[in-house]
């Protein structure tokens, strides 16, 4: 790495500059929607209707956030959301990495059956009703377990991790085996530490998925105030007319419109649900941006 300073050719320099320019343009283009949401969330909700808020609030206010935090159920929701995110992510990582390791072993006999069995689950679902009835029969309705247990295995995550493991030198495992380590130990002691970048990525996917989901709360735990999640509580505040096309009752629509949250509150909700995840991000990011040298681990 230290050799780069004297190594730059003219072409390299052009490439570098062009690269910085392109990436800067991408940053500008992609930062806009979020800043826009942020600006609107701090703008007076009546004033927002006039439009034309871009990067900066026109009439600054904290009222939108005060309104949101005025809902007491948010705190319970927040706790449950964190709990499900942590537990769901840990369980999901465990299952996906174990399965990925098993599949990455070329000498595993049932790997074709297992990978097909897994892959198919990505493309079908029995549908809402049978799943609901299954959960009822397993007594999962109205429990915390319904958030983390049914989705423990995600085939997508398994295959992504396996593709990473496939790229690791196989020789590492063989030498460990010669040293008398069993398969679980090899997985745990040798493979897992090498997989940090991909595990961090999958952890991010799992955490965001868990954090953002509200539909399971809605279907299975809506009548359990002690088990509702932050997202679900915020969905309650959100407008209820987005898909009103099925309704033809003008009176009802009028009543509902009175309950519609103003744009600014919606944006503040977006910020409230996104920020906790953004806080986690830097901790995971160093694994897949920082870069790690395999060589160091190898020796």
């Amino acid at each position, binding site marked *: 790495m230290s050799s780069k300073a004297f190594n730059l050719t003219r072409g390299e320099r052009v490439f570098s500059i062009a690269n*910085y320019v392109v990436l800067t343009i991408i940053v500008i283009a992609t930062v806009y929607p979020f800043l826009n949401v942020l600006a609107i969330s701090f703008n007076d909700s009546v004033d927002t209707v006039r439009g034309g808020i871009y990067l900066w609030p026109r009439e600054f206010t904290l009222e939108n956030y005060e309104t949101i935090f005025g809902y007491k159920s948010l705190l319970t929701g927040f706790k449950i959301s964190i709990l499900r995110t942590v537990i769901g992510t840990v369980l999901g990582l465990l299952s996906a990495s174990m399965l990925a390791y098993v599949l990455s072993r070329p000498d595993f006999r049932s790997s074709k059956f297992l990978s097909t069995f897994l892959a198919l689950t*990505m493309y079908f679902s029995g549908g809402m009703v*049978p799943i609901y009835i299954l959960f009822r029969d397993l007594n999962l309705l109205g429990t915390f377990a319904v958030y983390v247990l049914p989705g423990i295995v995600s085939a997508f995550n398994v295959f992504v991790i396996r593709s990473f493991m496939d790229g690791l030198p196989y020789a590492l495992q063989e030498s460990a085996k010669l040293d008398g380590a069993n*398969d679980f130990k090899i997985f745990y002691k040798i493979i897992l530490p090498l997989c940090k970048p991909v595990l961090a990525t999958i952890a991010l996917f799992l955490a965001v998925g868990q954090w953002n989901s509200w539909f399971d709360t809605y279907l299975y735990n809506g009548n359990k105030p002690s088990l509702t999640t932050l997202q679900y509580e915020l969905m309650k505040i959100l407008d209820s007319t987005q898909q009103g096309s099925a309704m033809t009752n003008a009176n009802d629509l009028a009543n509902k419109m009175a309950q519609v949250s103003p744009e600014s509150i919606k944006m503040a909700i*977006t910020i409230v649900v996104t920020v906790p995840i953004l806080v986690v991000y830097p901790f995971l990011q160093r694994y897949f941006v920082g870069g790690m040298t395999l060589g160091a681990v190898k020796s």
Partner: protein
Amino acid sequence: METLTAAQASQTKKRPKKTKTNKRSFLKDLIQQKYLYLMSIPFVIWLFVFNYYPIWGWTMAFQNYKPARTFGEQEWVGFDNFVRLFHDDQFYLVLRNTLAMSGMGLVAGLIFPILFAVLLNEVKSMPFKRITQTISYLPHFVSWVVVAGIVTSLLSLDGIVNDILMWLHLIDEPIQIMAKEHWFWGVVTGSDIWKETGWNAIIYLAAITGIDKELYEAARVDGAGRFRQIWNITLPGIRSTIMVLFVMNIGHLLATGYEKQMLLGNDLVSDYSQVLDLYALDYGIKIAHFSYGTAISMFTSVVSILLLFTANGLFKKFAKESIM
């Protein structure tokens, strides 16, 4: 370069040809690899219970399902729902739109994130790299409602896109871009790229960090430039991740969701904006025709699985690798 081919060789070497199996050797394997089985069988059971067992719900597609009745009381109608589906002109329309948009999305969703990840990887300044990466993934968390609003105003008659085109004298008067049916697929794909590229690049970035840095050192010693390094080391290094994602996404060609199409679309472009998932919602669940909805999702599943096997087969044939 030599190190690279060596790495590739070690990859192919990894899968020794299996000899013909019989019962005894299976039992022996079972004992020998007991940890591997212990690490996988619980999850197989799990998947069976939570994913495979509820498939009995597919029987609904062959019934005139009524939520109120028990399984035994349902009326069986054979393939009626499928016959109706395949005779509906609108089904073919939404199928066309779905395939067009997801096909475009598949290609764009492959090229742009990879390109972005590769470019990012070439950045030497760590703070710049981290900031760029963090910011680029933010739009993923902004809902489609907001993004659709922004896109619509950018593309409106007095929006910035028309202003730029006018300024460049490419057009004489503003164009109502969102009213053009034929441009709708492009608008959806473009918005998708804008919103998801940074997020989708994360996986490739992680894969890139798995590439042995010694390979780059060696290439540099050989005098390879940046493009050569990208082409000969970075891309081959993440090939297996690219292929796995590509194959899995091919299987998802029919499952596009409907949110972005609905929010970006309007009544003028509905012939090009309606997709299969919305059709299933409108003509299935929303009007309590659960059987019809199930028939559609069964069709989607079967086609998805066929696509998956085809893609995987081709992958296996040409790349000598396979996800299954």
